[in-house]
């Protein structure tokens, strides 16, 4: 039997890992500078909505435990292969590879700014970071967890401490006397939910590592919930801190609001600390993305949604083909400079449309499986079902509607999403018909999905 190596601490670190990215710190500054402290209300609503997603994913994980990757298998059993391919390839593989690349670019830009005298191009920093993380993840889940535990907890502790220093006005910088509420109008506050939603995306990245988690029945749901609450607490404290030390106008104009806050709070020391926070945030996000996407690809190969080569593991048990592919593409995107183009944030938002579709499908999967197998034992059940999953669906659709405050940008995102959807639909239909030889929309039986996890399944089903 495979030894379980990860405890609750690593589970929370993984959950926090993907959620807290440098881009989130930017969004935090934008949101806070738009309405002030009431942005915490929008954050709370979005945190609750993501908690419902965590509940749904936890119930699916309880019904189909110990699967490699996990997320693709749930949808295969719930809604069939066609939608599974679209949301997994669009929402996870493509979206998070681009997001990871953008994060790396921010890391490179930050370091090249700090060490401007060295004359090293930002791409070199990105590539070095990616190579280090690829090599670490090729050393197996142990190495991933060691890096993740250190990086995620250092990140959380740093932001919490910096936030609390600001909250209690303990900084050595000048305290700003300004109104803490820029707008208390509910319309203004709730229009920021689309932005706040991105501060909490990604807690389900705990699932791909669940096979290696001790007492997964307890630790997987608890890890997701704790990571969301921890992130909410940390970011709420930061918003209050912003209000005491950063003029709202300066915060709105800053491309690195957390660094601005650090320097106004503690001077040079604060700047250095927040630059370190940026480095930690990027490392945490990219480390989680490489490890989890590698496992998701391996899981997708097991259920025949990707070529079988992605199932291959090295001596340390790492799915090296997926890790090298994801890491390699991230390096390529950074070396070609694509990760720094103006259109990148637009592409990330488009990818997020598919990511949110994956959330909607997770809630649907819960409802479908409750109907199909009402009496199957579940070690975790979404409370108040079907009400909460339905709130999750409606809430996520509302977030999709509010994905950007600019109508033109929103329409462009929708148009591109439809285009990508059609492309993925053609790819998915051909793959399912020609390679899998299965109906597009017929869900797999859970017993078949579970059987596909067995190492001998591929041998018997060539």
């Amino acid at each position: 039997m495979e030894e379980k190596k990860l405890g609750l601490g690593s589970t929370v670190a993984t959950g926090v890992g993907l959620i807290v990215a440098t881009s989130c710190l930017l969004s935090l500054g934008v949101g806070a500078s738009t309405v002030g402290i009431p942005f915490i209300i929008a954050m709370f609503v979005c945190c609750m909505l993501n908690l419902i997603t965590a509940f749904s994913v936890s119930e699916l994980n309880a019904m189909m435990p110990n699967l490699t990757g996990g997320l693709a298998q749930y949808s295969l059993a719930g809604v069939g292969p066609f939608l599974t391919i679209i949301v997994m390839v669009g929402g996870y593989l493509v979206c998070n590879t681009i997001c990871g690349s953008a994060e790396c670019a921010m890391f490179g830009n930050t370091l090249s700014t700090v060490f401007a005298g060295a004359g090293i191009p930002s791409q070199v920093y990105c590539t070095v970071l990616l190579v280090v993380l690829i090599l670490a993840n090729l050393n197996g889940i142990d190495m991933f967890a060691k890096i993740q535990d250190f990086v995620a907890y250092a990140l959380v502790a740093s932001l919490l401490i910096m936030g609390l220093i600001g909250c209690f006005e303990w900084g050595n910088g000048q305290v700003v006397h300004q109104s803490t509420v820029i707008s208390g109008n509910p319309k203004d506050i709730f229009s920021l939910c689309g932005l706040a939603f991105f501060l909490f995306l990604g807690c389900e990245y705990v699932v791909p590592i669940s096979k290696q988690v001790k007492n997964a029945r307890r630790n997987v749901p608890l890890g997701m919930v704790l990571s969301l609450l921890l992130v909410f607490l940390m970011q709420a404290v930061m918003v209050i801190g912003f209000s005491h030390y950063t003029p709202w106008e300066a915060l709105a104009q800053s491309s690195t609001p957390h660094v601005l806050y650090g320097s106004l709070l503690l001077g040079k020391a604060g700047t250095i600390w927040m630059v370190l926070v940026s480095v930690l945030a990027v490392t945490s996000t990219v480390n989680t993305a490489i490890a989890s996407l590698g496992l998701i690809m391996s899981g997708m190969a097991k259920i025949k949604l990707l070529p079988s080569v992605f199932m291959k593991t090295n001596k340390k048990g790492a799915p090296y083909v997926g890790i090298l592919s994801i890491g390699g593409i991230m390096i390529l995107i950074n070396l070609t400079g694509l990760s720094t183009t103006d259109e990148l944030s637009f592409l990330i938002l488009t990818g997020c449309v598919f990511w949110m579709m994956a959330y909607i499908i997770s809630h649907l999967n819960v409802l479908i499986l409750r109907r199909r197998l009402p009496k199957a034992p579940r070690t975790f059940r979404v409370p108040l079902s079907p009400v909460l999953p339905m709130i999750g669906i409606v809430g996520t659709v509302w977030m999709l509607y509010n994905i950007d405050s600019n109508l033109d940008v929103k329409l462009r995102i929708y148009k591109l999403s439809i285009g990508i959807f059609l492309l993925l639909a053609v790819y998915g239909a051909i793959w399912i018909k020609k390679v899998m030889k299965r109906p597009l929309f017929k869900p797999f039986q859970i017993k078949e999905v579970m059987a596909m996890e067995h190492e001998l399944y591929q041998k018997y089903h060539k």
Partner: protein
Amino acid sequence: MELEKLVKVEIITSMAKIEALRLQLGKFGVSGMTVYEAKGCGVQLGTQEFESEKKKAPTLLDKQVVMMVLLEKDLNDFLSFVEKELYTGHIGDGKIFISPIMNVIRVRTGEEGEAALLEGEL
């Protein structure tokens, strides 16, 4: 005095799960159980989940049977607990048979029904 209704629960499951189940049943407060090794197959006729063709003739696999008697009022909680403990989602998680018991007698003391199942003062 009317005796509490008793039920017999027989759990057939694979060898791999029995040790974890035994430990968990202790935590649940089960006062006694009998475990015996068996051979058998279910509706799959012994076909392993990864095999592509269903076996034509039954193949008997190694199984264990856990037998215990408990009060009918405790049955639902007990079944919910055991089902969750045994559940993996894979074929072969097991089956649970439930049947009524007319009476239980502790030979040494002659106690009957619920009293025969619990640790008594006699």
